[in-house]
């Protein structure tokens, strides 16, 4: 009895629980800039039913002298959700990841001895939280006029492996078992999809706008994936990457045109 295994990646066209047409479709996006008046920059980011409010303060002088860096600025990220202790531990991890990504994309050399505070408030959670947190932070940074070296784009991939076995007889009448492992990759999953099966893994990939085939950050949850599945996610994320910067441009253009109309109407 011989066993062989092959791996294929498919993106099916079946309807998803929230009504999206295919597994490669993102949820509808909405963004409101400058919604907070006291912050230097703010953004209310909505991806489907996941809503995050981001506020940026700075560059400002740090309150604690230990947080000061004489050669470059420091990005401080705080996530607030008002949940229990178990989720606070999760927020520490997400905050550290966002801190590393934002500190690499902000031109911190222009702000020595300064702190840029990014406060993220989770208003409503329905899956793909880390990507929404990052996008809202980037939108708030752009609203605050902070210099960015590049625009990071996060894509959430839900990977579920299904194995199908088939047996057949070869030319010598020996039974041959073939196991085909198919990886199903869903983009931008909802919380229902994330919790549907414990054996699924969630991979958040951060790409650069101008070089989407390269990975600036990854964060994995779940039992894990094979190397082929990981590289397939990288490929899928690079294709989905251009959608978010186009939406950023649209949101900023609408904000500027609205402000111009208000300014000139006086």
């Amino acid at each position, binding site marked *: 009895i011989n066993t062989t295994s092959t791996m294929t990646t498919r993106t099916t066209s079946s309807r998803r629980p929230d009504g999206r047409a295919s597994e490669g479709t993102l949820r509808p996006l909405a963004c409101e800039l400058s919604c907070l008046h006291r912050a230097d920059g703010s953004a209310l980011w909505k991806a489907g039913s996941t809503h995050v409010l981001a506020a940026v303060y700075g560059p400002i002088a740090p309150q604690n002298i230990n947080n000061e860096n004489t050669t470059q600025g420091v990005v401080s990220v705080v996530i607030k959700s008002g949940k229990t202790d178990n989720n606070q*531990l999760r927020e520490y991890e997400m905050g*550290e*990841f966002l801190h*590393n*990504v934002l500190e690499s994309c902000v031109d911190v050399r222009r702000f020595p001895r300064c702190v840029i505070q990014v406060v993220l408030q989770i208003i409503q959670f329905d899956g793909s939280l880390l990507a929404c947190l990052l996008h809202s932070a980037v939108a708030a940074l752009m609203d605050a006029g902070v210099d960015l070296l590049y625009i990071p784009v996060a894509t959430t991939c839900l990977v579920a492996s299904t194995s199908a076995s088939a047996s057949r007889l070869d030319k010598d009448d020996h039974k041959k078992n073939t196991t085909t492992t198919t990886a199903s990759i869903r983009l931008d999953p909802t919380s229902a999809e994330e919790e549907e099966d414990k054996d699924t893994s969630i991979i958040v990939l951060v790409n650069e706008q101008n070089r989407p085939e390269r*990975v600036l950050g990854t964060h*994995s949850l779940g039992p*894990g*994936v094979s190397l082929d599945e990981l590289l397939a996610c990288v490929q899928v994320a690079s294709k989905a990457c251009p959608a978010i910067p186009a939406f950023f441009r649209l949101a900023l253009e609408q904000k500027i045109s609205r402000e111009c109309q208000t300014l000139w109407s006086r």
Partner: protein
Amino acid sequence: KIPASSSSQSTTTSLSLIRSLDPKPFVEDCWQHSTRPDGRIFAQGRPTKVVFGMLKHSAGSALVQLQHPSSPHRPEAASSASTKILAATTLQIGQPAPDQPDEGDIVVQVTGTGGKNMGSDFKSHQQPHWDVLQPWLQRILEEGGIPSQLNLITGKACIRLVVTVLIIEDGGNLKDASLLACMAAWKDTKLPVVGKDLVEVQGKFWWKQGRSITSQQPPESEADLVETNSESRDFRMSLSMGVWVHPTSRTTHLLVDPSAEEEPFLEGTLTVVISMSTHQLQVDYAGKVALTATDLALAAKLAKGRAEELQTVLVPTR
């Protein structure tokens, strides 16, 4: 005429002084010559030592040491810049959560001793690392399938595994050392069996008289030995790699098991968690350098090699 021995000693002293005052040029110069400050090559990790059963009164314990390779330029460093982590497990019996009636619970606590390599600014420098280390360890242990093995009676009784991680020395790469210590302590832990180690009296579980659940108790039979060294447990190990880009050729290099001397000057840290039974991967990376698919594949290959090395190390020696 200066004696040769004193001139070499003064050169070594000058080198150590320069290295302490401004370590960045020294470290980057080493990297540009395809070596590392402690003499390792890029794909080489530090020697790993695992000692099981360190503590007498815990259910399981292990001491993990990432030893600093002795360097001809700095022989005193062999005992100074290593990473030492002690992990201990204790068991608590209680009722499972209503939404997960067939699973137990894991709680991870990370603490330090304030000893070697933890100076006066230890709190301000180390605390942010520990705030992230604790949730990371908790998540990895939970996702490794351990809670499902902590069930005693579905819906009635389960085990809470309390894992205490003590950072004795911080010589860099706390993630790998602490996860290996947790896995080794879990390997060393013997779980109680209802009817054998535990008796139910009036709806409550009590330890059977004379049956202590510590790692120091010798197994009574082959069955006990199999139970302690259970082959059904899935162990996970991690491999952390620093990312550095050569300033002239712009090629990306992965530095396996970065030391505390190298960590501040890296451009990113890539951590690959691999399951020893299924070889499935979890990749975490955040940095200033964008990685290609080739870099990710190389990191996965290095992690698999490390997993094969640690499979022999994790076999308990009694």
